[in-house]
C-alpha cells in the first residue's frame, strides 16, 4: 500500500522528512497517471478515429498505408435531421427525468427524513431493497404495465408503450430509489431549528418544504439532477425496448443502429456520433463538476 503514503495537504507539524513527503507525492501522481492511461488511450483513439478514414492502433492510415487519411466525412451526419431529432428526444427524456426524479425524490426524501408517520421504517427499508430491482430484470413485466397504461383514456396516449412519456416515466421510476435515498440524506443534515422556526413563523409543512428546506438542499438537488441527466441522456435499454423504430429514438438508440448485426459498420463514424453525443455532456460537466461532489455530502453520516 505504498501508494497511500502521500504527503498531507497541510504541512505536518511533526518532523516528517521533506524527502519522504516528496516521494509520497510522486507515488500518488505516478499511481494516478498510470490508472488513467487506458482511459486516455481510449479517448485519444476516439478523437483520432473520428477524423480519419481508418486507424491502425492510434495511427490514422491512408490508402497507401502511410500516416494520413484525415477526413471529415465521419461527421456528415450532423447535417442529417434524424440525429437532431434523436438529440431532441434525448433532451426530452433527460429533462423529463431531471424534473420527475427531482420532484419525486425531493418530496419523498423530505417526508422520509422529517415526518413521523405510520410505515416510515418500512418505507426506508423499502427504498434500499428496491435497489434489488433493476430495470433490466423487469423489462418484460414493465411492458405489460405500459401496455395497460396505454389503455387509460385520454392520458394513455402520452404514457403508454411507444411514447416518450412512457419511456420517461419508466426511467424516472427506475432512478427513484437512488434519488430518494440521496435526497433523504441531504434533508437529514439540515438543522431542525430552521424548520421549527418556519413552522412557528406560520408556514404550513408544504410551505416549509418549498420555501425553506428546498433552497437548503439545492446543491444536493443539483448533484442529483446531474446524475439523472446523464442517466437520461445515455439511456438505451428502456427507450429502445419500449419504442418502435426511430420515431422516439434518442441518441443512444440512434448510435446503436449504426452498429447492429452484420451492418456495414463504419466504426469511425460510430466514434464520431459517440463523440457528438458526449460533447454536450462534457461541456455541461466541466461547468458543474464541483456540484457533483455534493452527491453524497448528505450520506457521509450513513443515513
Amino acid at each position, binding site marked *: 500500500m505504498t501508494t497511500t503514503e502521500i504527503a498531507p495537504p497541510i504541512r505536518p507539524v511533526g518532523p516528517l522528512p521533506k524527502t519522504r513527503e516528496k516521494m509520497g507525492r510522486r507515488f500518488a501522481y505516478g499511481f494516478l497517471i498510470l490508472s488513467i492511461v487506458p482511459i486516455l488511450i481510449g479517448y485519444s483513439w476516439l478523437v483520432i478515429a473520428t477524423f480519419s478514414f481508418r486507424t491502425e492502433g492510434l495511427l490514422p492510415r491512408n490508402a497507401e498505408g502511410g500516416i494520413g487519411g484525415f477526413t471529415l466525412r465521419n461527421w456528415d451526419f450532423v447535417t442529417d435531421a434524424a440525429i437532431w431529432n434523436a438529440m431532441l428526444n434525448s433532451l426530452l427524456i433527460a429533462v423529463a427525468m431531471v424534473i420527475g426524479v427531482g420532484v419525486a425524490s425531493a418530496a419523498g426524501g423530505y417526508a422520509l427524513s422529517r415526518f413521523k408517520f405510520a410505515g416510515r421504517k418500512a418505507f426506508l427499508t423499502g427504498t434500499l431493497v428496491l435497489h434489488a430491482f433493476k430495470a433490466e430484470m423487469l423489462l418484460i413485466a414493465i411492458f405489460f404495465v405500459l401496455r395497460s397504461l396505454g389503455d387509460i383514456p385520454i392520458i394513455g396516449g402520452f404514457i403508454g408503450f411507444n411514447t416518450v412519456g412512457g419511456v420517461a416515466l419508466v426511467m424516472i421510476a427506475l432512478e427513484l430509489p437512488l434519488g430518494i435515498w440521496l435526497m433523504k440524506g441531504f434533508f437529514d443534515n439540515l438543522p431542525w431549528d430552521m424548520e421549527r422556526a418556519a413552522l412557528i413563523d406560520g408556514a404550513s409543512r408544504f410551505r416549509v418544504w418549498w420555501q425553506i428546506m428546498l433552497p437548503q438542499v439545492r446543491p444536493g438537488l443539483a448533484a442529483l439532477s446531474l446524475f439523472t441527466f446523464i442517466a437520461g441522456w445515455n439511456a438505451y435499454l428502456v427507450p429502445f425496448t419500449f419504442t418502435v423504430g*426511430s420515431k422516439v429514438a434518442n441518441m443512444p438508440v440512434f448510435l446503436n443502429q449504426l452498429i447492429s448485426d452484420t451492418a456495414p459498420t463504419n466504426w469511425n463514424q460510430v466514434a464520431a456520433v459517440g463523440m457528438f453525443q458526449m460533447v454536450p455532456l462534457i461541456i455541461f460537466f466541466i461547468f458543474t463538476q464541483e456540484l457533483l461532489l455534493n452527491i453524497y455530502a448528505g450520506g457521509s453520516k450513513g443515513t
Partner: protein
Amino acid sequence: MKRRKKRLPGLMILGIAFALVAAACAGADTVDTPPETVIVEVEVPGVTVTSIVEVEVEVPTGGELITLVARCRAKQSIEEGRCNNLLRGVVDANAALEASGDDRRVQVKIIQDNPAAGDYVTEFELSSAAGEAPDIIAAAAVNVGTWGASGIIADVTDMIGDYPEFDDIVPSLWASTELNDRRYGVPLDAEARPLYFRKDLLAELGWSQAEIDSLPARLASGEYTWEDMFDTAEEAVDAGVVDPGFGWWPRPKNGPDFLYYYYAAGGELMDPSGALIYDTAAAKIVYEIMGDAVARDILLDTRLDGDWGNWHNGVAFGNVLFWFAGSWQWAEWAEFFVADLGGEEYLFENVGFGPIPALARGTNTPITLTNPFAYMVSSATENVDLALLVISKATTTELNTEYALASGKLGILKSQADYEPYTSARFQSEMAPILEFTTFQPNSPFFSAWSDAYYLGIAAVVSGEATPEEAVDIVVDQLENELGDNVIIK
C-alpha cells in the same frame, strides 16, 4: 462558486424551455381530416441521410384516406429501398384504386432504421402485443415460423392471386414465406452466402492466373472441395502468406450461415410432422471440421468472438485467404472499408467468390443458403388488401432491381433475367449462378432454439472446450432441455 450556483438553474430552465417548445412542435405534425387533395411529404429517415419523397394523393369526395405504416430494417443508404419502394408504389396503388372505382386512397408512412436483427424481431412482437404494430413489416422470412404460428401476421395465401405483379416472383422463393402450406408474406429480396477468396494471396502462394480464375467454376462443379480449401489455407499459413489463424474465417457469431455446414454434412432438419431434427452424425462432422480448422492453424480459437469490427478489418483488407460471408457484404466493403482503395473495382481485382465448396465427407455438393427478406402484413391491420396492393406496386422489375443493385442483393423476379440494368450488373450476374445451390432456413417456431443449441457445439469446439463428441453431447442435452418433444435426436 457563487456564480456557478446561479448558472445551473439557468441552464436547466433553458433546457426545459427548449424541451417544451420541441414537444409542442412534435405534437403538431399529425394530419387528421383528409382534405380533398393532399400532398404528403414523406420523410425518409435514413440513419445518415434523410430524403424527402413527395407523393401526391388525391382523395375523391366522400372517399377515405387510409394511412398504412410500414416498418423496415435497412442498412443505411444501401438497403433503404425496402421501405422507399413502398412509398414509391403508392402512386400506382392509388391509380389502381381509382381505376377499379374504389373510393379509398392510401398513403404510407415509413419507419426505417437499422436495429439488430433480434431487437427488431422483439420490437415487432411487443408492438403487436401493445396494439401498435405497423401494418407492413419487412423482416427476414425465417420469422414466418414464429409469427405465423402466433398469428401476429396475416395469412395472405388466398389473396396473393389478386395481384398479377406477384406472378413474376421466382416460384421457389415462395417457400421461404410458407408455414404449414400457408403463405404469410411476399419475398422482397434474395441473397447468396458465398465463399470469398483473395486472388492476390492465392497468386502469392504460387497459383497461376488460370487456376485462380477457374476457382469459381471448380467450386461450382464440386471439384474443389471444402477439404481442398483447408489444405490450401494450411499451405498459405505454412508459407507465411497469411498469419496463423488467418487461413479461413467463418462469420464471427451465430447466424444463418452455420446451417449450411449442417446441410453440407448431410444433416436433415425438418421432420414431416413439423418437429425439428438434430442429426448427431451430421453435426459431429461439422464440429470435427471446425476443430480441424483450429488444429491446423487456419482458424484462431478466438475467432468466434462476435466482433464484426475485427472481422471486417480482417477480410476487407486482405489479411484472410478464405472466408464465408454474405453477398450483401460486398457492397459494405466497397462503400465503408475500401472506398479509398478503389471501392468495388478494388474488390473485383483482389477478391473472388463462388459457392460454398462441397464437403466431401458429407453430401459432396456445393451449397449456399438464402435468408430472404419478405414483406409481411400485420394481422392487426384492417386493410390487408391495401397493404398487399402497395406491396405489389413495389414489387416491380424497376423498383426491385434498383434496390437489389444498391444493396448487393439478388433479384427475385423472373423478369429480371432479361432486364438490362440487372443483367449488366457485374456482381449480381456473377453471383446469380450460386443461387442454384441455395437452401433455406426452416420456418419453424423452434428453429431459434435449435440454432442456438447447435451453435454452442461449434463455439465449444473452436474455443477448445470440447471435443466434437462432447460437443454433440452438450448440444443434445441443451436441445432436450430447451425443446423437449419438439426436437428429434437422430
